[in-house]
């Protein structure tokens, strides 16, 4: 087990490093660097040359812009890893302040969505398999197909459309009621958050749930035809015991092992849905950063999302190893 953890950990660090190199390349791709952008902005504000130099110099210093690429990368990488994100010139705010709550909310929404996808998908998939060819089974199959074909941002658009046309509202709730919008976190705010979050979770999670239902149904059907299910039934076990102890535990494996893979999709979904519904997640901030060519803020967001993903995958792997001895003891 220890060896497994160490191997996964090393692997995770490697992926983290490589993915930040890629993100760094994205920052470096546009012509000129951050100081040129900044200088251009300051010149547009008609500041005196000395003032411009005084503002640009610390930036060059900070990101080692006059040094070769590896030094620049290292400076950038260490500043992110130490959570020292610096100051966004476009937004005129420290990046940390801009990001912290949005990032935390994004993670919260993604996590709740993941739980939703797993619980609902597995439950419905199992139910469909047990009641194969029943009306419910067909209903869920159809819902599953359509759910998979409707991407979350279109679903968000449709729900927006329905709420405008049918309920005459001008926005879809958001994540908080108006009175809690700027309130500090409290128990009441958390409850309010949970009341609002489910619409968002359903929108982001529909595609994933549909996929999980299909895989779970097929898996469960395979398991149901195994002879040990008959044995269990012949032993006189109750249906619930047969399905949950002997069926579910085997059928669930491929789904648990794909949790890590479904996480990027959920984070992507949260990003784009938050753009359509204007939720206070990282999505709108990322789009703003990209539109105003604040590549530094943009790459920070991408790197942090990727970090969250990779660490999430690592945790999923550990959970899986803990659940399934075959993986733990492999090699």
């Amino acid at each position, binding site marked *: 087990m220890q060896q497994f953890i160490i191997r996964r950990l090393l*692997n995770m660090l*490697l*992926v983290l490093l*490589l*993915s930040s190199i*890629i993100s760094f390349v*994205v920052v470096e*791709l*546009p012509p000129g660097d951050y100081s040129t952008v900044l200088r251009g902005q300051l010149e547009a504000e008609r500041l005196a040359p000395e003032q411009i130099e005084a503002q640009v110099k610390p930036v060059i210093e900070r990101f080692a812009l006059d040094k070769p690429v590896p030094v620049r990368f290292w400076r950038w990488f260490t500043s992110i890893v130490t959570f020292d994100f610096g100051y966004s010139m476009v937004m005129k705010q420290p990046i940390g302040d801009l990001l912290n709550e949005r990032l935390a909310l994004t993670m919260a929404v993604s996590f709740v969505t993941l739980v939703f996808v797993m619980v609902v998908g597995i439950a419905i998939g199992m139910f469909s398999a047990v009641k194969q*060819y029943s009306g419910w089974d067909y209903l869920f*199959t159809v819902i599953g*197909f*359509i759910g*998979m*074909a*409707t*991407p979350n*941002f*279109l679903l968000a*658009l*449709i729900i*927006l*459309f329905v709420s*405008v*046309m049918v309920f005459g509202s*001008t*926005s879809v709730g958001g994540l908080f009621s108006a009175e809690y919008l700027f309130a500090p976190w409290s128990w009441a705010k958390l409850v309010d958050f949970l009341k609002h979050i489910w619409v968002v979770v359903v929108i982001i999670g529909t595609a994933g749930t549909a996929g999980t239902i*299909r*895989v779970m*149904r*097929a*898996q469960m*059907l*395979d398991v149901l035809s195994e002879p040990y299910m008959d044995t269990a039934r012949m032993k006189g076990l109750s249906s619930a015991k047969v399905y949950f102890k002997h069926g579910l535990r085997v059928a669930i494996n*491929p789904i648990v092992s794909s949790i890590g*893979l479904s996480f*990027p*999709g959920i*984070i*992507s*979904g949260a*990003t*784009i849905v938050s*753009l*359509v519904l204007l939720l206070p997640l990282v999505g709108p901030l*990322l*789009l703003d950063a*990209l*539109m105003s*060519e604040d*590549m530094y803020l*943009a*790459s920070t*967001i*991408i790197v942090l*999302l*990727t970090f969250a*993903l*990779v660490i999430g*995958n690592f945790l999923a792997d550990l959970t899986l190893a803990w659940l399934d001895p075959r993986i733990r003891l492999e090699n």
Partner: protein
Amino acid sequence: MSHSDPGTQTETATVGSSSEDLSDLLVSQQVSYRQLLYLRFLRNKLAVAGFWILAILYVVALGAEFFAPYDKITRFGDILAPPRLPRFVDADGRFHLRPFVYAHEKGRDPETLRRTYVADTTERYPLGLFVRGDEYEFLFIKSNVHLFGVEGAEVFLLGTDNQGRDLFSRVIYGARLSTTIGLCGVAISLVLGIIIGMISGYLGGIVDQAIQRGIEVLLSFPSIPLWLALSALLPLDWSPRRIFFFITIILSILNWGSLARIVRGLTLSVKNEEYVLSARMGGGGRWWIIRRHFFPANLSYAIVAATLSVPEMILGETALSFLGLGLRPPAVSWGVLLQASQKVSVLGVAPWLVSPVAFVIVTVLAFNFVGDGLRDAVDPHSRF
């Protein structure tokens, strides 16, 4: 394939007389692999339906100039006009076999100041086939004949946009870019995926390790944020054609990884098959074995995986364009069209602007059905 598709079981359970004919056919005569795939594919009704939907879609997209009643840039004075559908029953309640439309009067609501369009029911304008309308040039042929249309009045199946252009015609023109971007992108990832996957699986060792780590990194990126960042780098002054080209590349950057993984897995399993060993013992060279045994074994699965990833590309383009970072006007794609429906205020006034969503969903569904059908067809474990 560990998880067999739920559809397979349904089909095998419900095949009736046609399957008996099929097994008779299989017994009575030798059927080639290709014919077998074809017969198996036909068995899946949803897949066949999906295939026909796609066929119609691509034909319509190809001949958009002819199938669309108007040109994509023809502006009518009627801005944000609601759909004007062909009718059969006139204002007096009489039924007419030939559908017709009414001309509309423009006006403004004195209270809300919104534009209003009132039908002028005095004269009916019949809907016609092969109607002359906007000039176009298709395959060097100049013409002005459109599949359907109305002379003297306008038929707006899906209403008009904020510049008074017929939305239905624009959806048809948009199908062109939206559907080709998926195919082009998948072609790129198919080539990359097969080559890299086969190299990884066949060579093994350190090369395999390096490629697998690289793919792992790619797959750990959240796709939408990375796509957004990459497409934000495309300069604003590029021509639509160049942007289309680069958006396609951006979309396939993340996509080939999973394909390469599948191909690698297949290559590994084929590598240890007896027939490959026998080919090697028979003196078959490395290149010959790759060409003769690995490539055919991989190709069908890779194509299936590719078909199933077309929707992802189409949706990716739609999402990017919808957010204003993908294709940009004057290029017309479904995502570009949906951009107009981004604002809640617009949606309240002109709900029909959201209709391109339906086209996206139907296309994606059709691709999924065809992909599932193909997967079942190439699955050697599927039975008749």
